[in-house]
């Protein structure tokens, strides 16, 4: 594969757009992607915004320029589409900070708890979750319901900080 240089970027962009049309593909790019990827994308946005685009697209192929959990979310929302992730190693440290086994263990110790997760989670963790979204969307509350513990994904920093402390339930919202 030839090295990516300033000289061959325009030709690669044309090739990408031509292939996208040929494959009936929509290109979704996270706004953290490098400029040349954003420039060939049909839509650029945050993870939840791109999920909505993935759910709404008529294209048969979704080329997701982001990290693994985002492509998984696109597949969850558009199960009949073929979802491509150009590099399967593209991951997210936040999504890696909690596993489904950890969450199941926490739920077993807190029966009846409501689980609210940032969208940066694996499909397996989402399957154990009650609400999954981004920070601007508040978790629903009801004055008629008694408060119940909620579990949110923890940042790596918080996880590290707790590693040397006695185990406690993850109750506070983070990130």
């Amino acid at each position: 594969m030839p090295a990516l240089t300033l000289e061959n970027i325009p030709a690669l962009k044309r090739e990408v757009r031509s292939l996208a049309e040929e494959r009936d593909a929509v290109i979704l790019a996270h706004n953290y992607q490098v400029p040349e990827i954003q420039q060939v994308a049909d839509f650029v946005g945050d993870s939840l915004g791109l999920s909505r685009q993935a759910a709404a697209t008529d294209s048969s192929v979704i080329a997701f320029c982001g990290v693994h959990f985002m492509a998984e979310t696109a597949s969850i929302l558009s199960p009949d589409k073929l979802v491509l992730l150009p590099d399967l190693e593209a991951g997210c440290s936040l999504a890696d900070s909690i596993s489904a086994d950890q969450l199941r263990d926490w739920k077993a110790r807190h029966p009846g708890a409501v689980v609210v997760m940032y969208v940066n989670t694996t499909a397996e963790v989402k399957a154990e979750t009650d609400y999954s979204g981004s920070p601007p969307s508040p978790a629903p509350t009801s004055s008629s319901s008694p408060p119940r513990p909620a579990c949110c994904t923890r940042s790596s920093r918080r996880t590290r900080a707790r590693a040397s402390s006695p185990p406690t339930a993850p109750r506070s919202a983070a990130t």
Partner: protein
Amino acid sequence: MKMITLPKLRDALNDLEPRVQVDPGLAERARLPIDRMVAIG
């Protein structure tokens, strides 16, 4: 986030690989919390 490059995107579109697929049963359960949050916000 910088792992995705134009050559990789070009190859993915050309080869229709690598793919990300979620098991249908798991996807059905994983969709519920997303739909709930979208519905309220």
